[in-house]
């Protein structure tokens, strides 16, 4: 009846997961209780859970990502402190638990932390920057988000029910085959990643279609903001690469569930094929994450330097170059697997060449700042910290792209330092910069500056103190994922890295404090104009937060930097463009199909993990039924009356007129 599920699945004998689970369950129940007590359910259901508004979905993606980043960071703290305590000593984490932690850290940080955040930014920004009212398939978008959330839910359930994989974040066979890992850990991984992978693919298709088909009038390809270009490139990679992951994990699933032999040693299987295929997805994946990050930095550098982006066209070309070449470098993750000189040389050269595209971008950002009037606001601090950190990470990457050098440091702490250098320095810094930059757009008030600066400096210094020792340790010969260390010579570096993680903890506290203080002081930090950073792209033409239909009248773009042009014209003529002729707007209706499908998908995943076949079938049928009901819906859209459109837009125009007047009085932008 319940398959393999029984009371033994709950880790009663292990205090750490047990206590964590109890605390997490209590907090979750507390939040749910608070929502029930305050009667917020109808509001949440109507305005958020069933919402098909791209901005709401984007914000929910970011919220999911932030929660998962904290979960992944907790894993990181445990790994650092454990290693520091495990030098010629047992440490405090038993091997099977430690292995789950480093696996969960990688899986969560990449697939459930960074990915939702990046997708959240794309969802929130792309339609606004393109001057349209929603993404191409709004309901599909909601399905995509909730499927990603289901995947995250499954990973977190594995903390209290059963166990997570102990195989590393890419479950290499033969270790991940049933013979060597009979438990449910790898199955949790497989179903969680498969379900969220479908969600990611959906969002990828959605953004590609939106950029290709839904631009406002006059928004030709070469007038799109760079963030839209990098989102397009990133989503093209999602569409190209995620099916490879799905197929690879499906083959591993068949091996585990139905005794197939794709990746076994016996009966003609080949575990190396898994390594090959999973990195054919895995390398594009890092560019899926970092390309939108480049887009975020491009917007910030140009805005806070008060200049158009230097070399816009070369930026676009570099983006597309990276998009294509990122599909040709995957072997550099396994130079040591046995390929001969020809293969290793080809992939070594292609890995070095891809750095050229990134180099072009770095110079463009530096030249954007050159001669500009640079404002050192918090987003700009993150961006400058990014250039410094990312360039050093990139240089160690070029070093690793040389096969003979890679043979020396393969799988060492040097590698760990390198990829944290590019992913934290590139993606995570971009996420924090972008949050600081667009938070006022999303919520209508800016974040507290002092706490923001504190968060940046703690994160920046903490990052370097944590990860520089890894480079040294790697060169001293320490391999990654060690549960036990018997070289006392390494201890100073491991202790230093614990100091670093302590500084990073202060950074996280500063981030949380920033949010708390900003929400408390929201009236004082209110953004009344909708353009508080003196922005250049169309999202700053809307009020903060934007109305659910984004634009009362779709803009008509003339030239690059759409909003900057409109603003200059207003400043020159000392008046806004004449009031347009308002018309009613049709918007898609909210739909519960996303959350229903995702709920049943999560049940399906859980049932498959525990071999509860009847429940899996029921859940699959129910998930499909949701789609069928949705396909036969009668009402697709509702009409926003002219009166409402005019009211919202007149309020916006009044704010803009006040801004214009203030600007002409002070002779400068705010």
């Amino acid at each position, binding site marked *: 009846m319940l398959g393999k599920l029984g009371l033994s699945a709950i880790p009663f004998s292990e205090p750490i997961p047990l206590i964590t689970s109890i605390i997490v369950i209590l907090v979750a129940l507390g939040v749910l209780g608070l929502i029930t007590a305050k009667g917020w359910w109808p509001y949440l259901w109507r305005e958020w859970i069933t919402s098909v508004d791209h901005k709401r979905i984007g914000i929910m993606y970011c919220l999911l990502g932030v929660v998962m980043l904290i979960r992944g960071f907790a894993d990181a703290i445990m790994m650092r402190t454990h290693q520091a305590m495990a030098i010629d000593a047992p440490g405090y984490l038993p091997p099977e638990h430690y292995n789950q932690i480093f696996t969960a850290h990688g899986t969560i940080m990449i697939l459930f932390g960074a990915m939702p955040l990046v997708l959240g930014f794309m969802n929130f920004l792309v339609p606004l920057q393109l001057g*349209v*009212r*929603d993404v*191409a*398939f*709004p309901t599909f978008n909601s399905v995509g988000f909730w499927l990603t959330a289901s995947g995250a839910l499954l990973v977190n359930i594995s903390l209290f029910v059963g166990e997570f994989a102990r195989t590393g974040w890419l479950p290499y066979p033969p270790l991940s085959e049933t013979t060597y890992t009979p438990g449910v850990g790898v199955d949790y991984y497989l179903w969680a990643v498969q379900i969220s992978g479908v969600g990611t693919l959906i969002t990828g298709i959605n953004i590609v*279609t939106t950029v*290709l*088909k*839904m*631009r*406002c*009038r006059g928004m030709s390809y070469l007038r799109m903001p760079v963030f839209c270009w990098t989102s397009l490139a990133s989503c*093209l990679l999602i569409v*190209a690469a995620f099916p*490879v992951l799905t197929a690879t994990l499906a083959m591993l699933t068949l091996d585990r569930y139905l005794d197939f032999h794709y990746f076994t040693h016996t009966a003609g299987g*080949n575990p*190396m*094929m898994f390594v*090959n*295929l999973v990195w*054919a997805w895995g390398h594009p994946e890092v560019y899926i994450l970092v390309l939108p990050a480049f887009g975020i930095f491009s917007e910030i550098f140009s805005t806070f330097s008060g200049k158009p982006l230097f070399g816009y066209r070369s930026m676009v070309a570099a983006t597309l170059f990276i998009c*294509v070449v990122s*599909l*040709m470098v*995957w*072997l550099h993750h396994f130079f040591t*697997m*046995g*390929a*001969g*000189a*020809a*293969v290793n040389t080809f992939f070594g050269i292609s890995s070095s060449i891809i750095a050229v595209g990134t180099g072009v971008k770095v110079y463009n950002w530096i030249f954007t700042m050159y001669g500009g009037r640079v404002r050192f606001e918090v987003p700009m601090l993150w961006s400058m910290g990014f250039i410094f950190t990312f360039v050093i990470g990139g240089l160690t990457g070029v070093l690793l792209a040389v096969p003979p050098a890679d043979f020396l440091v393969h799988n060492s702490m040097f590698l760990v330092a390198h990829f944290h250098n590019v992913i934290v320095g590139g993606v995570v810094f971009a996420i924090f910069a972008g949050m600081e930059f667009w938070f006022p757009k999303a919520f209508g008030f800016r974040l507290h500056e002092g706490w923001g600066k504190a968060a940046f400096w703690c994160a920046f210094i903490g990052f370097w103190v944590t990860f520089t020792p890894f480079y040294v340790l790697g060169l001293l010969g320490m391999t990654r994922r060690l549960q036990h260390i018997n070289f006392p010579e390494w201890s100073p570096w491991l202790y230093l890295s614990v100091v670093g993680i302590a500084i990073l903890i202060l950074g996280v506290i500063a981030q949380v404090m920033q949010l708390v203080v900003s929400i408390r002081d929201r009236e004082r930090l209110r953004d009344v104009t909708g353009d508080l950073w003196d922005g250049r792209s169309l999202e700053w033409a809307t009020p903060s937060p934007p109305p659910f239909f984004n634009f009362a009248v*779709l803009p008509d773009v003339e030239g690059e930097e759409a909003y900057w042009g409109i603003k200059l014209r207003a400043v020159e003529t000392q008046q806004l463009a004449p009031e347009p002729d308002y018309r009613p*707007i*049709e*918007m*898609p209706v909210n739909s519960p199909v996303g959350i229903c499908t995702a709920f049943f998908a999560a049940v399906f995943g859980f049932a498959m993990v525990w071999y509860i076949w009847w429940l899996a079938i029921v859940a699959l049928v129910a998930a499909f039924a949701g789609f069928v009901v949705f396909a036969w819906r009668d009402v*697709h*859209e509702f009409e926003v009356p002219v009166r409402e459109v005019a009211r919202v837009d007149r309020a916006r125009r009044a704010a803009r007129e006040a801004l214009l007047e203030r600007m002409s009085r002070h002779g400068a932008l705010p």
Partner: protein
Amino acid sequence: MSNLGSDPHRHTDMLDGREDHAPGDEPEESAGHWVRNANLGLGFSVVLTVGAFLLAASDVIYPPAIPVALIVLAIAQMGVHLVFFLHITTGPDNANNVLALAFGILVVFLIVIGSIWIMDHLDQNMMPMEQMMRMQR
């Protein structure tokens, strides 16, 4: 696609002629033309399929050339599917579809050819079997 006020077909006349349409979003096509087109495609693909079977079973052509002939028929079959069922044409309205197809082919080509090359190379850095046997003795 929902009607969000920016659907291309809503103001196609206002946009320049190169404006592109997603599959399923083209301007209305007459039903007769659609049926004729689909039937033509069906006819072609049936002929190509039956032809492949006949060719393989008979000795109309030089026997060692049969695999090549089958490959030619298979490629023709793909072309028929692309043109008649997926509506990939050279028309001005098709840039996105053609580009998407090209990108897809490029990705498949890179991953398939790359994987074959890599997997074929995997024993290159292994010790020759003979030497290993000697060492074990």
